[in-house]
C-alpha cells in the first residue's frame, strides 16, 4: 500500500518537534516533505541571544542538521517558500511553481517581527530579531557602527540590547509604555530591572513614540539609517535599529487558501484548522484566542499534533499557562499569571530595594493567581506550580512569601540561587555535576526540559533535592522561552495518564493485575518500565488488599529480595526491634549469625536497630532462619522504624510511656506497604528525644495526653512535622495515626513521602478527613487493619522451600 503523504510548510522548532514526536509514535506511516524558507536546518531560536552576545555560534545551536532529515527519510527543500495551497486538489505550490501532493498538511509558518509603519522603516540597518539573518546583520553592524537603538522594552528587546552592548555598541532602548516589560512586571520591579540594566551601561528612553527613521547624511552606497525621530520632536543618533515591538503570526498563506484565521491560524484542541486535513502548529496559530511565543507550549502542541497524525487520537491541547524569565546574565527575574490586581485580589509584598529584592504574590479566593519576583527567583517554579494547580493556599499563607525551602536543602553548598553560583560549583551532590556542565549540555545538546537535563547530565536524577536549582539553570540559560513541565504529569513515558487517573480507574473498574490495567488504559509499551510497574503494583495491592495479586517481578530488587542491595551486589539485613527494644537472647542470635556468615560489618542504625552488612544473596534465607526475628522492612516502601525515647518507665522527666506506645504502633502497622518509606517516632515528653518532629508521624507525650504531628522529614530537605491533633489515650493515637497513614496510602502518588503529598493536598484537607469526619476516620483505620491482617512475614515465607526461595538460588553451568 502506498504511504500517505505528509507535507510541512515551515522548518522551525515547533514543526520539527512534531515530526520527531510522530517518528517516535509511528515511524514509516508517512512520506514526509518539508519546506523551509531559510537556508538552514532546524536551529534553536531560543539561543539567538547568546549567538548575538558572542557566546555561541550557529553550529552550536543547530538542533537538526541536514543529515537528520536524510537519516529519517524526509525530503527537505531549503530556501523554498510555499506560496499557494490548493485544498481541493490537495497540492501546495512553491515559488518556482512546482506542486507537491499531500494527504495531510502541517502549517508551521511561525511568525515575523512586527515592523512599525513609520517612514524610513525600509532603510538599511533596520532589522528585526528573529532569525540567523537578523543576528548576522546585527553582528556585522556592531563591527562598523557605534549607535544602536532597540525599539521595544520587552523580553526580546532587552535581550537584543544586552547582546549589542556586549558587542561594544552604545545601546539605547526605546519603549512606548511607562515601564519596561509592562506585560510581565509591575512598575516597582521594572524600576529595579531598569536600574540594574543601567548599571550595565544600557540607556533607556521611556514613554517615547517613534515618528520616523531618518537616513544618514553621507552620500553614496545604499541608504542607511542614521537617526531616529520621536513624536515629541526629539532625535537621537541610530546606526542600527532593532525592531522588537512584537511578533505577528504568519497566517497569510493559510488565509489565501480560505482557512479561517483570526490573528493567527485558528485551530481546535487537536491542532486542526477548519480544514481537518490541515494542521497548524507553533507561533502561527491562534488557539482559544491565544497565540503562544514560548517554547514549552509549542512543544505541548507538537505532542498533540503528532499523536493525531499517528492516528492515535487521544491527545488534546487545552492551552498553557506560561511564565517569564529574562535571559540576561546576572539578572534574576520571574513572573507568571495575573498581577494587574483588581477588586478581588490581595497582594502579599516583600520589598528590599537596597538588596535589590522585590516579590509580589497576588491572591484571589485563597488561590495564588500571579507572582512577580525580582532579585530572588528561587521559588519561581514552586509558585508557578501552586498557580497552575490552583491549590488553596490558606493553610500556608503566613509563610507563602518565604518560599518552599524555608528550612533548606543539603548537598549543594547551601546554595539557593543558581545565578550566584560559579560554573565550577557543584549543583548535584549525588552525581557530582557542576553548574558549568549543565549549562554546557543545555546549550550544546539543545535541551529544553528538566527530564532532558536529568538524562544527559544525571543532575537531579538521584535524590532530586537540586531539582529547583537545575530548573533555575534551565530558565536562566533558556530565558523567556522556557517554562517548566506541564502541571498534569503523566505517570511515565508509557502512558499519558496521571497517577491519580490510574488510581481512580483501578478502583472504579476493579482492576486486579498489571497486564489488565495496562490493557484497559492502553499502555504504549508492552509491559511498562521500571518506573510505572512498581507504582502499578502498589496501587493494585493497596486498593484491593487480599484480592489483587502482588507481582514480585514488578518490584524493585530490595522488595523482591527483602533486603537492601549494596554497591557490590551484597545485601544488608535489618531485623525488627519493636520500638528500639531488644533482649539479650536476640542480641546473642544476631552475634551468632554474624559469626556464622562472617558478616563484615555490624552497624547500629539511626532508627534504633542493628544492620548486618555484606551478606551474600544466597545466604539470605539462612540468615533469616537463624535470626528467627521478624523482617525489619528496612528495604521497603513500608513502615521502617518507630523510634522511641525511654519514657515514663525510667526517665525522670517522662510523662507518658513512649516506649510501649512505639511498640504498639509498630506492631499494628508494620506489615503495611506504602507509597514510600514511612518513619514514626514517639517521645515521652516535650523534650522530644525521639526527634518526632521530623517523622512522617511523630507522637509527643504530654502530661494530659498525646500530640500527633504529621508530614515531617529529616532527609533530602528537612521538613518539620505539622501539628494534627491532641488526643488523650493510646487507642486514639493508634486510630488517628492509622487513619492518617491509610489516607496517605490511598491517595498519595507512588514515591511521594507524606510531606510531598501533604504539600499538595494541604493540611486542611487531612484535618477534614481525619479529624472532622469521625465515621470516615474509623473507616480509614478499619481499612488499614484489614489490609495488614494476615499478611505473611516476607522473611518467613522465603525460609521455607518453594517458589519464593528460587529468587536466592544460583544456577550452575
Amino acid at each position, binding site marked *: 500500500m502506498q504511504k500517505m503523504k505528509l507535507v510541512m510548510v515551515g522548518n522551525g522548532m515547533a514543526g520539527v518537534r512534531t515530526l520527531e514526536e510522530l517518528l517516535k509514535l509511528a515511524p514509516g506511516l508517512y512520506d514526509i516533505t518539508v519546506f523551509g524558507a531559510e537556508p538552514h536546518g532546524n536551529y534553536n531560536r531560543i539561543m539567538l541571544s547568546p549567538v548575538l552576545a558572542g557566546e555561541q555560534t550557529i553550529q552550536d545551536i543547530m538542533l537538526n542538521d541536514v543529515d537528520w532529515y536524510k537519516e529519517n527519510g524526509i525530503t527537505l527543500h531549503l530556501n523554498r517558500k510555499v506560496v499557494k495551497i490548493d485544498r481541493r486538489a490537495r497540492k501546495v505550490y512553491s515559488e518556482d511553481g512546482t506542486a507537491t501532493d499531500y494527504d495531510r498538511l502541517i502549517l508551521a509558518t511561525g511568525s515575523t517581527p512586527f515592523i512599525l509603519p513609520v517612514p524610513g522603516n525600509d532603510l538599511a540597518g533596520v532589522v528585526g530579531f528573529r532569525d540567523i539573518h537578523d543576528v548576522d546583520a546585527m553582528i556585522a553592524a556592531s563591527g562598523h557602527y557605534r549607535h544602536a537603538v532597540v525599539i521595544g522594552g520587552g523580553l526580546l528587546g532587552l535581550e537584543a540590547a544586552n547582546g549589542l552592548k556586549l558587542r561594544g555598541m552604545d545601546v539605547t532602548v526605546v519603549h512606548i509604555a511607562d515601564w519596561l516589560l509592562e506585560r510581565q512586571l509591575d512598575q516597582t520591579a521594572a524600576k529595579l530591572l531598569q536600574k540594574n540594566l543601567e548599571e550595565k551601561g544600557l540607556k533607556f528612553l521611556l514613554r517615547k513614540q517613534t515618528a520616523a527613521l531618518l537616513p544618514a547624511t553621507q552620500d553614496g552606497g545604499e541608504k542607511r539609517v542614521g537617526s531616529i525621530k520621536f513624536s515629541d520632536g526629539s532625535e537621537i543618533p541610530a546606526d542600527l535599529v532593532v525592531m522588537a515591538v512584537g511578533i505577528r503570526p504568519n497566517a497569510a498563506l493559510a488565509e489565501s487558501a480560505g482557512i479561517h484565521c483570526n490573528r493567527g491560524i485558528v485551530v481546535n484542541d487537536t491542532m486542526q484548522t477548519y480544514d481537518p486535513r490541515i494542521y497548524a502548529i507553533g507561533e502561527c496559530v491562534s488557539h482559544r484566542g491565544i497565540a503562544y511565543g514560548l517554547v514549552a507550549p509549542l512543544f505541548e502542541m507538537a505532542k498533540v499534533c503528532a499523536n493525531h497524525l499517528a492516528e492515535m487520537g487521544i491527545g488534546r491541547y487545552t492551552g498553557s499557562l506560561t511564565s517569564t524569565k529574562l535571559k540576561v546574565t546576572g539578572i534574576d527575574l520571574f513572573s507568571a499569571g495575573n498581577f494587574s490586581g483588581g477588586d478581588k485580589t490581595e497582594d502579599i509584598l516583600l520589598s528590599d530595594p537596597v538588596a535589590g529584592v522585590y516579590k509580589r504574590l497576588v491572591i484571589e479566593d485563597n488561590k495564588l493567581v500571579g507572582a512577580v519576583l525580582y532579585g530572588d527567583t528561587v521559588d519561581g517554579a514552586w509558585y508557578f506550580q501552586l498557580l497552575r494547580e490552583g491549590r488553596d493556599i490558606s493553610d500556608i499563607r503566613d509563610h507563602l512569601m518565604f518560599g518552599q525551602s524555608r528550612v533548606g536543602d543539603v548537598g549543594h553548598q547551601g546554595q539557593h540561587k543558581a545565578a550566584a553560583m560559579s560554573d565550577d560549583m557543584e549543583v548535584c551532590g549525588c552525581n557530582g555535576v557542576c553548574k558549568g556542565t549543565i549549562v554546557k549540555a543545555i546549550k550544546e545538546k539543545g535541551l529544553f526540559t528538566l527530564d532532558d537535563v536529568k538524562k544527559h547530565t544525571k543532575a537531579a536524577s538521584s535524590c532530586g533535592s537540586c531539582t529547583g536549582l537545575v530548573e533555575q539553570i534551565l530558565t536562566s540559560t533558556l530565558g523567556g522561552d522556557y517554562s517548566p513541565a506541564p502541571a498534569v504529569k503523566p505517570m511515565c513515558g508509557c502512558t499519558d495518564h496521571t497517577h491519580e487517573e490510574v488510581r481512580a480507574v483501578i478502583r472504579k473498574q476493579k482492576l486486579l493485575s498489571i497486564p489488565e490495567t495496562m490493557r484497559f488504559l492502553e499502555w504504549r*509499551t508492552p509491559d511498562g518500565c521500571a518506573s510505572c510497574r512498581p507504582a502499578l503494583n502498589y496501587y493494585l495491592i493497596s486498593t484491593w488488599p487480599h484480592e489483587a495479586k502482588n507481582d514480585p517481578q514488578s518490584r*524493585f530488587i530490595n522488595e523482591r529480595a527483602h533486603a537492601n542491595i549494596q554497591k557490590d551486589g551484597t545485601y544488608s539485613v535489618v531485623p525488627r526491634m519493636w520500638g528500639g527494644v531488644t533482649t539479650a537472647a536476640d542480641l546473642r542470635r544476631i552475634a551468632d549469625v554474624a559469626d556464622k556468615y562472617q558478616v563484615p560489618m555490624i552497624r547500629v542504625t539511626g532508627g534504633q536497630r542493628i544492620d548486618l552488612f555484606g551478606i551474600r544473596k544466597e545466604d539470605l534465607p539462612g540468615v533469616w532462619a537463624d535470626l528467627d526475628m521478624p523482617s525489619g522492612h528496612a528495604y521497603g516502601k513500608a513502615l521502617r522504624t518507630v523510634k522511641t525515647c525511654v519514657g515514663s518507665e525510667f526517665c525522670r522527666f517522662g510523662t507518658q510511656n513512649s516506649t510501649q506506645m512505639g511498640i504498639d504502633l509498630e506492631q499494628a502497622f508494620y506489615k503495611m506497604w506504602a507509597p514510600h518509606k514511612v518513619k514514626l517516632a514517639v517521645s515521652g515528653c516535650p523534650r522530644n528525644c525521639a526527634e518526632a518532629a521530623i517523622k512522617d508521624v511523630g507522637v509527643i507525650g504530654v502530661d494530659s495526653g498525646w500530640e500527633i504531628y504529621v508530614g515531617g522529614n529529616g532527609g533530602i530537605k528537612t521538613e518539620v512535622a505539622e501539628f494534627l491533633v491532641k488526643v488523650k489515650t493510646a487507642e486514639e493515637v493508634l486510630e488517628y495515626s492509622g487513619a492518617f497513614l491509610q489516607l496517605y496510602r490511598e491517595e498519595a502518588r507512588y514515591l511521594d513521602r507524606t510531606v510531598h503529598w501533604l504539600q499538595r493536598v494541604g493540611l486542611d484537607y487531612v484535618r477534614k478527613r481525619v479529624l472532622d469526619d469521625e465515621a470516615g476516620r474509623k473507616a480509614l483505620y478499619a481499612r488499614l487493619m484489614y489490609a495488614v491482617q494476615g499478611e505473611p512475614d516476607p522473611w518467613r515465607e522465603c525460609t521455607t522451600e518453594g517458589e519464593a526461595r528460587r529468587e536466592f538460588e544460583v544456577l550452575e*553451568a
Partner: protein
Amino acid sequence: MTEWIEICALEEIPRQGTRKVKSGDAHIALFRTQEDEIFALADRCPHKGGPLSEGMVCGKHVTCALHSWNIGLADGKAAAPDVGETPTYPVKVDAGVVFIQL
C-alpha cells in the same frame, strides 16, 4: 564450535524475571521476557558493575538495580544518552530447556 550447555527449564525463570548463572569465574544473568524470549548477558552493568540479574525486565531491556541504566537484552548496549556495552551470550530454548554457549 563451542557447545550448548544445558542450564535449567524455562519454567525455572519467572516471566519478566532473571536468574543468576555461575560458570567457574564467569557470572551470567539470564533473562526471560514477557513474551518468553530468553537472553543472557554478563552479570555486570557497564556503568558501575552492578549485577544486572537484580534488575527489572521491561520489554527487551533490563533496568539496572543500582542506578537505573537501561541495558538492551539483545545487544548488551546501554540506552542513549548513556554509553556502554556488556557482553552477550548465545542462548536457545529447546523443548522447554534453556541452553547457553559460553
